[in-house]
């Protein structure tokens, strides 16, 4: 079989087969098929395939008897939604409780938040202290990037045990009492 280059018409052959074309399109496709041997042969092939479709006997009554009752189907759908709503409520309640607990803890946590005040160490200029900066070690370090963490570690390595500047009064400094922090 030689293939017709008119892909648009070939695409419409199954619709022609099933009588699914509007009047104008159907006339156009039929006119093409009348002139085109390839499309005529392809349409004949599709007709044969359609005719070969397996014929399966279906027991309609048995299927219908197995269907859920309309009320049951509605209840199933509703209960499915109800579970989703209940899960959402539980999730929100748990989340709210967690937030409330965090908020209760927060003031205490701030009072004990450790802070280290140190000088930044400029390795590029050979270890010269270039100024004071606060390095908070406690709750925010997890947000630092790798580069920031590397810089922080470098700073810590060169940090003196004695602070070179006065700590920021607004941030409680680390206090050591009886070996604990």
């Amino acid at each position, binding site marked *: 079989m030689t293939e017709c280059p008119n892909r648009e018409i070939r695409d419409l052959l199954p619709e022609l087969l099933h009588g699914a074309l509007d009047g104008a399109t159907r006339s156009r496709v039929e006119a093409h098929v009348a002139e085109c041997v390839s499309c005529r042969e*392809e349409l004949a*092939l599709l007709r*044969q395939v*359609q005719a070969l*479709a*397996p014929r399966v006997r*279906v027991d309609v009554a048995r299927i*219908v008897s197995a*269907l859920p009752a309309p009320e049951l189907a509605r209840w199933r*759908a509703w209960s499915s939604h109800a579970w989703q709503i209940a899960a959402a409520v539980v999730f929100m309640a748990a989340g709210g409780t967690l937030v409330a607990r965090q908020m209760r803890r927060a003031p205490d946590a701030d009072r004990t938040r450790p802070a280290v005040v140190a000088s930044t160490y400029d390795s590029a200029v050979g270890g010269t202290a270039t100024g004071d900066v606060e390095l908070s070690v406690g709750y925010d370090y997890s947000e630092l990037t790798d580069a920031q963490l590397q810089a922080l570690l470098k700073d810590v390595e060169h940090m003196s045990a004695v602070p070179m500047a006065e700590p920021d009064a607004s941030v409680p400094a680390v206090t050591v009492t009886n070996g604990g922090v």
Partner: protein
Amino acid sequence: MTDAIRSRDERGDLELIDAWRAGDERAATLLVSRHAPAVARFVVSCGEREEVDELVQDTFVRAFGALDGFRADSSLRTWLFTIARRLLLDRRRADRRRRDRVQIDEADAVTEVDALDGVVAGETERRIGQAMARLSPKQREVFTLRVTEGLTYKDIADVVGTTEGAARVHYHNAVQTIKEFLDD
């Protein structure tokens, strides 16, 4: 659906669904009569031979239990094909697990059986059956839905989980493969 039943009730699927929801059991009978044969044909065309009745029944039970989720973006029949295909794949996955098969590939889900064996009669029909057996599972699904069921590329894409463009390519490749086989 038989023509006799269709002629008795030309209500659309959505009207019948509403009627069934309102308690009209006859509406369910009409819907099943209208679509079950096509679902069964599709299932058989996909190579399923055993428990076709159960699969078709499960398709309708699943569909009627979830009609609230039917958005009517596509036709009811397309939706039923989608459910049937999903059940078919699930069943085959379960069968494979039972056979201790580790690899599960959806592309291989439709078995490589002759889609028309046992139905063909003459030489031409036998040759067409052999040609269709050479199609890939996806090509056969697309070709069957297009030629036997008359679905649009958009609906086919919804059923088999692909794009309209890909469905079009599968269809034309299938036609090409069948023609080449018959020309040999």
